[in-house]
């Protein structure tokens, strides 16, 4: 099929960017979206032009590195699907596709479609863990955990840290990402001792990074490739309130 791509090109964080248009005459429907970019880059390089920079690594929907804003939607039109797992069979011959980077002030653009998401790491460093040194653990089965809680914690832990929730939110809020981690650890007995401190520190760090406020529009949940639920935001808000009362 024939596909026209309008791609955001920007040399670096300091220079302004603009859209460039490229036409690919022969896209196979078995290709992934990123494989289409491979083909385009191959062509650009052979023509002596600069290739398009984009983030990716696993190409299996699990590392969270890929990040394209496709036709106005984070990771494109398919729900529950990362950019790397999106296949061209979901587009039609003759389509024009607009591709942009994640846009959020907490995610500055590095080049073309690549952005800097290190703010997420710093939020985790502020408290997204259970403080247990290597070698200090008790036997794993000495802490039975109801299957239901374990499964819920797992669902929260499935977040891949891609940032689609931020990119898609009109306030560029990181609530879904942060609440997923807070919630995972709050659901487990191991996470209780630090529960109050954790939520406070992480929320503080989140605000410092310049993410916006949550106004409950719920766009993040819709675009999250891992189906992280808004319930986690509610749980985090409760925990945050409690942590302030306890203080």
């Amino acid at each position: 099929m024939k596909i026209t791509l309008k791609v955001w090109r920007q040399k670096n964080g300091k220079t302004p960017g603009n859209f460039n248009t490229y036409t690919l005459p022969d896209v196979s429907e078995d290709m992934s979206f990123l494989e289409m970019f491979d083909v385009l880059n191959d062509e650009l390089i052979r023509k002596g032009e600069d290739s398009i920079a984009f983030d990716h690594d696993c190409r299996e929907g699990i590392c969270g590195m890929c990040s394209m804003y496709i036709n106005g939607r984070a990771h494109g039109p398919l729900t529950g699907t990362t950019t790397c797992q999106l296949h061209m069979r979901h587009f039609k011959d003759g389509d024009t596709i607009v591709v942009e980077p994640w846009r959020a002030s907490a995610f500055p653009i590095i080049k073309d479609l690549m952005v800097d998401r290190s703010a997420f790491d710093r939020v985790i460093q502020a408290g997204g863990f259970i403080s247990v040194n290597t070698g200090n653990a008790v036997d794993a089965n000495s802490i039975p955990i109801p299957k239901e809680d374990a499964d819920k914690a797992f669902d929260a832990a499935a977040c891949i840290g891609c940032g689609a929730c931020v990119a898609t939110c009109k306030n560029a809020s990181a609530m879904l990402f942060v609440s997923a981690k807070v919630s995972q650890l709050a659901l487990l007995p191991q996470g209780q001792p630090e529960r109050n401190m954790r939520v406070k520190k992480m929320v503080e760090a989140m605000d410092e990074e310049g993410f916006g406020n949550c106004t409950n529009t719920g766009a993040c949940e819709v675009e999250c490739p891992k189906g992280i639920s808004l319930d986690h935001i509610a749980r985090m808000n409760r925990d945050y309130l409690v942590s302030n009362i306890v203080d």
Partner: protein
Amino acid sequence: MILDAKIPEGPIADKWTRYKATIPLVNPANKRNIEIIVVGTGLAGASAAATLGEMGYKVKAFCFQDSPRRAHSIAAQGGINAAKNYSNDGDSVHRLFYDTIKGGDYRSREANVHRLAEVSTAIIDQCVAQGVPFAREYGGLLDNRSFGGVQVSRTFYAKGQTGQQLLLGAYSALSRQVGRKQVQMFSRHEMLDVVIIDGKARGIIARDLVTGKLERHFGHAVVLATGGYGNVFFLSTNAMGSNVTAIWKAHKKGAFFGNPCFTQIHPTCIPVSGDHQSKLTLMSESLRNDGRIWVPKKKDDSRKAVDIPEDERDYYLERRYPAFGNLVPRDIASRAAKERCDAGYGVGSSKMAVYLDFSDSIRRLGKDVIEARYGNLFEIYEKITGEDPYTTPMRIYPAVHYTMGGLWVDYNLMTTVPGLYATGECNFSDHGANRLGASALMQGLADGYFVLPITIGEFLSKDIRTKAIPTDHPEFEKAEKEAQDRIARLMSIKGNKPVDHFHKELGKVMWEYCGMARNAEGLQKAKKMVQDIRASFWKEVRIPGAADETNPELEKALRVADFLELGELMIDDAYDRNESCGGHFREEYQTEDGEALRDDNNYAYVSAWQYKGDNQPEVLHKEPLVFENVKLVQRSYK
């Protein structure tokens, strides 16, 4: 040179305990002044960096992704082994040890493997304490499943995302140390060389992948945890960025390379769909617990799978290996699939695939159970192929998955360069000629949490008086200049072909001649072909942009340049080993019914290759493998 593996004295079950008690300690005041570089933040690197930080060392950690959480370990699906015997099915440390040695086709070192089995149980405890949400039973206790090549259930898992959950656990421990300023994290950095001063590893040269600037970093010791080199084949289940650069540069600086040709081909991957293919996706081996593998009995049968009646299907694994059936080890399952396809029984449009069929299990257990077990894998499959595995059998074919080879290390996990360590998939250590499923995650975390942080004391305790070496030392300058020159040379070629062109060519040669089956003649031919591709790469490659900016093509070029050198060494190693063992199948050496034929009299050794300079043949050293606790037998899964 005689390779000293530094295996402690004493009976196998006591070696580690006794040795641990004798390793000199570094006192807390001295730890504060000792800096350690950890390259890689996968399971092996993140766990080591976190633990070393907890112990009080000053750590600098590096990864090329934008966050340490994205290391390739994240993609592991199936599970992690541990000899907990929670299933009460007769498992024990000894059995895990024995299974690993046997699964590795008797080409690994007993003492290391035993230690791995011993510490396996503590890994699960540690991970649960960190909040890793492993699968549980209704009673609230941990659930287990079985994996290929063994007869007990010792695999812990978190749906099909075990690697992700374990890595996020290690990442959270690492993040905690970054927050405490015990670890300084350098993301989007690629190590381009090690710096050796007075015979010891004392630092690295790294490129900041955003600015393109080269940086010098000092460390009293350097730990490499940079993962496997399966991408030498271009198409593999590895992430796009997985590479050999760090360990290859270390190799060229004196670290011996162990068993480079030992590659694992995973039997259950989604087949190639066209020339645009950039990577191959694994379908976890755990699927073989409930899926049955078959091909039509008739050659070139073009009927749809569902239209082929039961008695016209050949469940060839169940037929050939009644005892293990669909659960035979990976190398055997892979070769059996290739054998059927080569003989003309393959399915799908390419005819290079076999069926993995769940219809029996769905009938027996219900769709819900199958969905709970494998739902996310089925989804991945459907996303990629557009087919629904609940109603049509999956099409699968083997793909390059794991490299058992890697830097040679002694019992302390130290390479032949003092102060330079290798952990996780990038060392050659524990899996011999074939790795059992769910054992790589175990090894990465064993090395990083429980082994290296202790054994490194052996070296560092003698080094407490060494002051930090300023990075204007001539050796730093020299190493940086070398990296700079290599980059300048690449940028100046300005040819007409992108890096991927050469990478794909290399991959084809490696897959054809140094892949699932190898023979002397093919290997000789391949050696020449790789040399030719390398020569044209250095004449014709085109790298757009500049060196002092974000430049993914330059990153790829630096990696492929190293793959092009490594490929030749793999070929030499495969050529040297005149036997078939594990993943290394030399067609000249097979039994009458096509099984691998080992030669224990002549090849029970680890090959350790020494780099001798550009265009010089590498020199082979041999570490003889001594088996005192298991009897060498021909592996049989019949």
